[in-house]
């Protein structure tokens, strides 16, 4: 590669990075604007929107509601996903591929289609739109991710570990609880964080399955329509910070346990 092409390549790369981050930077900047309206020019700066945001009881309540949904979804997804991973793990059986494809399907179905079908399904089961319906929807969407991560980890577990546990007198349940589960934990932590973030962030399913109480993304969307104040930017900036930190640490966790089997 000549010097010029290398320069060109790095310029394209940095242009891409700027394109990616400019909207985020603008969003964060607006949160510090000392005015009721979002938009340039910014004449004076303030921290007051952050104060407003943290003291806004309505926002805090919605945040807690979203967190409740995210945590419940994560717990359910981890349990069901691990169970599915054990069923689809290293053991071979007839029709395994079909079961595997079925287990992965919810992850790739377009959100809007899955949201509509879940809404109809929930109604036919007499589940009223609201928290439980949303948790159900998010769990259906998240289980495949836990399953996939779990299968990958299980495939890297030497078969002899289970044999050794059985050889030393453990039955299958004890072998799972004391040998397999601890082996899965790093992957499950990563998958769990991922579940929490997707659930917290989800709009389409939460919108279709929700009742009168909005989740945070749904609330922010509704504020957008009624005219948004920089308080929303402050809230968004806080969420951005938390999710980025969580996401990066999840990614690190998953990568580290790939190296160290």
């Amino acid at each position: 590669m000549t010097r010029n092409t290398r320069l060109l390549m790095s310029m394209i790369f940095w242009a891409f990075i700027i394109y990616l981050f400019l909207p985020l930077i603008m969003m964060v900047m607006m949160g510090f604007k000392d005015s009721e309206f979002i938009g340039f020019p910014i004449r004076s700066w303030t921290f007051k929107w952050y104060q407003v945001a943290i003291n806004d009881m309505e926002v805090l309540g919605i945040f807690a509601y979203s967190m409740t949904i995210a945590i419940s979804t994560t717990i359910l997804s981890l349990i069901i996903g691990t169970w599915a991973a054990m069923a689809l793990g290293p053991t071979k059986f007839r029709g395994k591929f079909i079961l595997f494809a079925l287990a992965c399907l919810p992850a790739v179905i377009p959100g809007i289609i899955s949201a509509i079908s879940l809404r109809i399904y929930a109604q036919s089961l007499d589940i009223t739109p609201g928290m439980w319906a949303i948790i159900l929807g998010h769990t259906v969407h998240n289980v495949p991710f836990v399953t996939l991560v779990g299968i990958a980890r299980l495939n890297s577990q030497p078969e002899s570990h289970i044999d050794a546990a059985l050889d030393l007198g453990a039955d299958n349940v004890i072998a799972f609880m004391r040998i397999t589960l601890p082996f899965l934990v790093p992957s499950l932590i990563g998958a769990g964080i991922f579940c929490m973030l997707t659930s917290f962030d989800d709009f389409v399913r939460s919108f279709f399955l929700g009742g009168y109480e909005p989740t945070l993304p749904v609330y922010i969307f509704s504020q957008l329509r009624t005219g948004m104040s920089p308080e929303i930017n402050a809230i968004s900036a806080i969420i951005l910070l938390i999710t980025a930190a969580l996401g990066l640490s999840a990614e690190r966790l998953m990568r580290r346990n790939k190296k160290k089997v």
Partner: protein
Amino acid sequence: MQTNDSTVRLQNISKKFGSVVAVEDFDIFIEPGQFVTLLGPSGCGKSTTLRILGGFIEPTEGEVFLGDDKVTKIPPNRRNVNMVFQDYALFPHMTVSENIAFGLEMKGQNKAQIKKRIDELLEFMQLDGFGDRKPDELSGGQRQRVALARALAPDPKVLLLDEPLGALDAKLRKQVQIELKTIQQQTGKTFVFVTHDQEEALTMSDRILVMNEGRLEQDGSPKDLYYHPETTFVAGFIGETNMLSCSVKKIDDDYVVLDWQGNELRGVCRSGTAKEGQDVSAAIRPESISCSAKKPGNKGVMKAKIIHRVFKGSFTSLSLEVDGVKDCILNATLAGALAEQLGDEEVWISLDPDYLSVLLR
């Protein structure tokens, strides 16, 4: 056959995986306190046999006995045998002590008993001070000892070892071979060891079972197998050997007399009865061929030409072409000083009839 708690009997064991026969009609009795090795090339069924003993595989036919108990259908967690795995299978999230404790906890021992046993084993295995380490903080040799300690902890009747030295480097392996033999003698337990390494088998075993293609080829002490192989497979698999194509001339009182392209040889047939005129193979170790510069007085001497001579320190290896014999170069080894007395070309050789094994084809 005296049985007690730690005798092992495999009665006419066969194992088929689909149409593939892994083990065929395998029948052995192992006395307590023996170091028994299953030796054979990969895919010979030795690991399958060991896993049948451990309870991981149920045989297609035949029965497994531990002492007087028939355990053929008893799963591994309810069998009083423990296994040392090829990759050690140490639990990575547990410390050395926790690994050793696992089997004891499963047996329902109390904390004090477990602690005592762990300390005992750590000391016995020269692992003092390593109890709180995780397996990935140990060297290969240390891990191997932890695996052994963990398998010995529940005081099994029989210890099964599945190529546990394969992951160690050559130098360490030699040292561990001796350690392992010592541990076996100190504990007095029955060890059933699986390996494809003939040197390892010869070094440690009281008794070796050579397997090939799912069948038992020969059962005997290391010396028996080395000096008196009963099949061409065993002769070729263990150590270096000269294989001669002969025909049976006659059977006299002590020996089978063979014709080797005009030369007369004598040997012993242990694997059956040789008949006159039959084509057979004769196997002899390089060190059982004696060479001298002058023609000795005894019978069965042959004249040979040295076509190649390699000095290897403690011994010299000679390639010999025997007069009148085509397509066969004999390999002989001589202790250093003896080789120096030989001339450059002509040499008189004789093959020790007690160490010449006649193998039926």
